[in-house]
C-alpha cells in the first residue's frame, strides 16, 4: 500500500519570504501522480500543483514549485514570495497511474502560517 508522510505539522514564514514544505512517500509503482492541495479555513480543497512521476522536470505554477526526487521518493513544495492568502493546511497526496483506483492517499498535512 502507498503511504504519504509529511513530517512538519506546522510551519511559519514571513510575508514575501520563501518556505519549503516536505513530503515523502512510499510506493512500489513506477508511474503515479503526486499533488499538493491547499485547505484554507473555508475547508475547500484546492489543487496547488501536480507532478507526473515520469516527468523529470519539476512542476511550477507561478509562485509554487516542487522538488521531485523520484529515487528518494521525496516531493517538496516551495512557496516563493509568500502571501497572507497562502496561510492554510497543505496536504501532499499520491495517486496511482492506473485507470481504475484513482483514489488519493493523503499525508497528515502541514499547517502554514504567514506572518505579516
Amino acid at each position, binding site marked *: 500500500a502507498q503511504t504519504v508522510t509529511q513530517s512538519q505539522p506546522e510551519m511559519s514564514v514571513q510575508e514575501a519570504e520563501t518556505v519549503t514544505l516536505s513530503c515523502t512517500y512510499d510506493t512500489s509503482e513506477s508511474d503515479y501522480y503526486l499533488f499538493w492541495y491547499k485547505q484554507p479555513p473555508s*475547508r*475547500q480543497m484546492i489543487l496547488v500543483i501536480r507532478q507526473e512521476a515520469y516527468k523529470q522536470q519539476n512542476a511550477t505554477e507561478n509562485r509554487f514549485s516542487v522538488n521531485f526526487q523520484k529515487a528518494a521518493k521525496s516531493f517538496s513544495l516551495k512557496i516563493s514570495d509568500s502571501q497572507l492568502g497562502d496561510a492554510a493546511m497543505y*496536504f501532499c497526496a499520491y495517486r496511482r497511474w492506473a485507470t481504475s483506483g484513482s483514489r488519493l492517499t493523503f499525508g497528515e*498535512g502541514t499547517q502554514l502560517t504567514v506572518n505579516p
Partner: protein
Amino acid sequence: SAVISQKPSRDICQRGTSLTIQCQVDSQVTMMFWYRQQPGQSLTLIATANQGSEATYESGFVIDKFPISRPNLTFSTLTVSNMSPEDSSIYLCSVAGTEMSYEQYFGPGTRLTVT
C-alpha cells in the same frame, strides 16, 4: 473543471440518528469519492461510488454505517447512520473526470457535529 455542491454545509445531530449528505456535480463524472476528515486530521477515503454499481468501501468502513447511493452520473448521497460523537467530522465529496483524469475536484464539505 467540475463544480461540486454539497448539502447540508453543516449540521448538528443527536447521537443515534442518521444524516444524509448530498453531492451534486455540474457535469457527468465516472467516479465519485467520499472522504472523512476528523478534527485536525487528514482526509481518509470512505468509499468509491461508480454509477450503476455498488460502492467500494475502504477498510474500516462498512455499508451499514455509511450507505451510499449513486443514481446517476451527477449525483451521490452518503448517509451516516446511527451516529455517535466519534462521527463528528467533515465529510467531503470528490470527483474524477474520465478514468484517466489526474484531476480530482472537491466539494466544500459538510461539517457534522454529533452531540
